[in-house]
């Protein structure tokens, strides 16, 4: 509802006859919806004002959208804390959703800011904030992944299947056969 109020009216059809005003010099009525009178100066001023408030509103909304991941981030942090540091179904699920959400959000970043696209609205800063927050969320996910021990950050992760190295010498023998 609120949304509809803010939007500017694009067009309107006046269906009832207005011939009594200034259409005397022509018997042909104006096409429906045509108003011969010049746009009112007052009207134009009102429209500009409306447009300004719309821009401000857009900018404000863009900032709001940009800050939305922060709440998410807090919630994720809480969930992660709840999940603990051992590998099980719940913690894996949490961690992967924590990783997936920022990624999907980052992929649709232009779509999210689409409604606020306006030459006069500067969406770059909110976009950057949005990206930064999502990256932070992703960082949190990665950190969680690491605390679960699922990231190859230790030396052990790189050598665990390192084959024994070849030996140059070979010695055989033992106790002689009797």
């Amino acid at each position, binding site marked *: 509802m609120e949304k509809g109020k803010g939007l500017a009216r694009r067009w309107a059809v006046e269906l009832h006859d207005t011939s009594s005003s200034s259409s005397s010099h022509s018997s042909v009525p104006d096409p429906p919806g045509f108003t011969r009178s010049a746009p009112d100066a007052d009207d134009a001023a009102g429209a500009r004002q409306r447009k300004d408030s719309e821009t401000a509103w857009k900018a404000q909304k863009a900032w709001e959208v940009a800050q939305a991941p922060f709440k998410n981030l807090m919630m994720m942090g809480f969930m992660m804390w709840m999940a603990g540091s051992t590998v099980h179904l719940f913690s894996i699920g949490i961690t992967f959703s924590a990783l997936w959400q920022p990624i999907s959000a980052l992929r649709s970043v232009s779509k999210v800011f689409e409604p606020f696209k306006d030459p006069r609205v500067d969406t770059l800063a909110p976009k950057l904030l949005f990206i930064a927050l999502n990256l932070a969320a992703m960082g949190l996910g990665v950190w969680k992944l690491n605390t679960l021990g699922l990231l190859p950050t230790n030396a052990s992760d790189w050598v*665990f299947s390192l084959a024994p190295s070849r030996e140059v010498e070979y*010695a055989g023998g*033992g106790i002689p*056969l009797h």
Partner: protein
Amino acid sequence: MAPPQPRHLLLLLLSFLAAASLATLAAAVYEDQVGLADWHQKYIGKVKQAVYHSQKSGRRRAVVLTEENVIASLDLRSGEIFWRHVIEKNDPIDQLSLSLGKYVVALSSGGSILRAWNLPDGQMIWETNLQVSKSSKPLLHVLSNNKVAKDNLVFVSAGRWIYAVSSIDGVISWGKEFSFDGLEIKQVVQSPDNDIIYAVGLAGSSKLNLYQLNAKTGEIAKHIQESFPSALCGETILGSHNVLVALDETRSGLFLIEFKGESISYNKVYILDLVQDLSGTVKLLPLMSNGVIALQASSTVSLLKLKGIDGLEVIQSFEQPAAVSDALTITEKDEAFAVVQHVGSEIELIVKFTSDVTNEFIREKINIDEHRGNIQKVFLNNYIRTDKSHGFRALLVMEDHSLLLVQQGEVVWSREDGLASIVDVTTSELPVEKDGVSVAKVEHNLFEWLKGHMLKLKGTLMLASVDELAVIQAMRLKSSEKNKMTRDHNGFRKLLIVLTKAGKVIALHTGDGRIIWSNLLQSLRASKSGEIPFALRIYQWQVPHHRVMHENPSILIVGRSGADSAAPGVLSVLDSYSGEELNSLRLDHSVVQIIPLTLEDSSEHRLQLIVDSHSHAHLYPRSPDAMNVFLHEMPNTYLYTVDIEKNVIRGHSLQKSCHNSDDEYCFSTKELWSIVFPSDTERIAISETRKMSEVVHTQAKIIADQDVMYKYLSKNLVFAATVSPKAAGEIGSAAPEEAWLMAYLIDAVTGRILHRVTHHGAQGPVHAVASENWVVYHYFNLRAHRFEMAVIEIYDQSRADNKDIMKLILGKHNLSAPITSYTRPEVMVKSQSYFFTFSVKAIAVTQTAKGITTKQLLIGTIGDQVLALDKRFVDPRRSVNPTQQEKEEGIIPLTDALPIIPTSYVTHSVQVEALQGIVSIPSKLESTTLVFAYGVDLFYTQLAPSRTYDSLTDEFSYALLLITIAALVAAIVVSWIWSEKKELRDKWR
């Protein structure tokens, strides 16, 4: 009130955790799984004496004594074992006899232990210890009692002693020591009237003593002594009831000695006068009968008739190989005996009566498998036919140690008892299944397959009746899948190729243990010149892979042509699939050590170095190709010798060509290092290395906190243990203060001692097993009066700083660089020891295809069972209170003793009697290893140390899975139809 609560809880939790961790370690089979993947075969060994049940008992059984120290009662109809006792090797049984028709009396340990078993069921009845002066050839004589008497005496003579023991309860009725120096009783003779026995003894080599004793009291009634002009060799037999035949010292003359009441009269007969062509040693065969004796020379066996003491008459001579049985009493007067000789490819059984030796009662030709070799022993038995005539059957002991029963010219049954004395084991793959070649019957049709699975499903859902359950069990046991003669996907089907003491090579199928082929090697058979060759080892000779796949794999058998270690060696190459001998070689050098190299020539022959007694190494196969391969690696090949007698370990390098030989395949050795142990404080007890075929997955060991330790993985690491000379004997022979055990880890290339540890108050016997970077050894702790097991793990400290991740990611590390023993090793050693309940006969470790699966120690216990002990229990990093990370890593809290979990016996309920060795063979499936344990018995099973994580078990019900899927699909379809209908209804509403 509150404080103790959490601690209790914690304890409870901990104990629960411990219990849970133990539960996962125990891997047992359910009762109905026995026999699915395992088999057990019972053997007895080469028979050296057989006695039959008397006919009156109505039981067709024979009691046999074997060279593996087994007493067994065999069913004469089928050859099955009724009962069996395997006696310890240190208590060798000398003689066996039956008494009163219901007791088996056995004399053992040089005449000092006499035991009696109940004949029908083998229960022991009594055991008597006898005091005998010295270990000489003891004699057992059971009084043959014609009258029905309540008691029957058993006479035992050993050295100067003679005992009379009641056969009912083992009470010694009398014992007598003859007060005559150097006397050795040779014969105990019973006079026709029961109350008098004669004991004939030799004092020195030429004084014959005859004692006449009262059988009831042991009083000496008479003593006669007679001196002979020439010395006797000690071999005497009783020709008839009062004539003794003795061989003289040169084994060329016979003394015929008659004792008649008061006096002894004798006469000397020269053997050459009787039998021409006497070569080799002459032996008297114990054929006690009415004046007939048998004389064995190396080329003939002669039957001689005694004419009083006036002389001997040759009745018949048989060409060797031949065997003569003991005399068998048929009637009061008459006795029968059997002679077996070879005629072409057949053998001939001749039965004669002593009353009429010129005639033959039976002459039968019997066809016998050529791989049984020559006849060695024959034991005759008779039975009464329905028409009251006498029928004869005989137990034959062949050269390959097998036992056959022949009756009416046919082999009724045979036992492959050579398998009771396995010398060495190797394995071979089976042939690959080829298209169009139906090796085994193709599985039953689809309907039967489905039926089988439905039955199994019924069993799973507990709907099956008792009969159906039996059918299911039979189906599982018979599964033809495991017995096919082709290679399988999982590598479970293989040939176990064993080399027996008799020189016979036998291939057993792992599926059910049946014999696929057997070959008595010509080169390992006793030759006419009397030298007895013996089998040493068996190795892989050629294992074809890709390029030469069309060739069959082959195996190499190494033997020695004589008992002496300097005797020339013999080599034999056998086809693994058929057992045919491809090549046989008599070497011109001895075999002291065989070193299988890790090299292969272009035709995939494995290279072997054989070291002779002059420390020269000989390369086999002798081909230029192999030579090229070897010369390339020769500078890096070293030899080491653990000389137990000289108490020294020596290391050698190889040098091109021998000094005094132009044989280009001969290499001389040069001593590089030696470790001389001070013989007044240390004696080498054991040396052990890793199995050459062992596969190690990784050099890193990840410990708690994601830390890495690098294993010191050198195949040249030798474990040697020495004990103090005083503690080298039996347990308890040394005080704890004078007993110690030293364990060494030695690099066999450089002779560097990497680690040494002393266990004070410890003594042997030491058993050890080495694998990867650890050694586990077992010994006795004199202070604690318990057996102990210790573990040493060795880590490479020089690699320990490889912890920079960036370097590891980029591959800038020295971990995969080849290692040489000549760089100074920095090692770190961890060790720990634990009490262990059992004394041990053998230790092995499980081997898997890639070495990823955790290891289990396979411990052959004193009870002849194989116990699987997880390596985690012998981990030197165990501590009393492991941290959380260590627990996560799987470290078990330290306990003073190693647990013996009853369900972790690999051999479940069976025993592998006289357990000798345990072999673990990897299958193609990483989780599973094949275990073969051998002794007198054979046992085979499949083992999954960490459960079968890479395959579904046989128990998995495919039918149940299919039905579940079908039911789910049906449910989906039905619910979809329902929802469609409902939607339609809703739309019309």
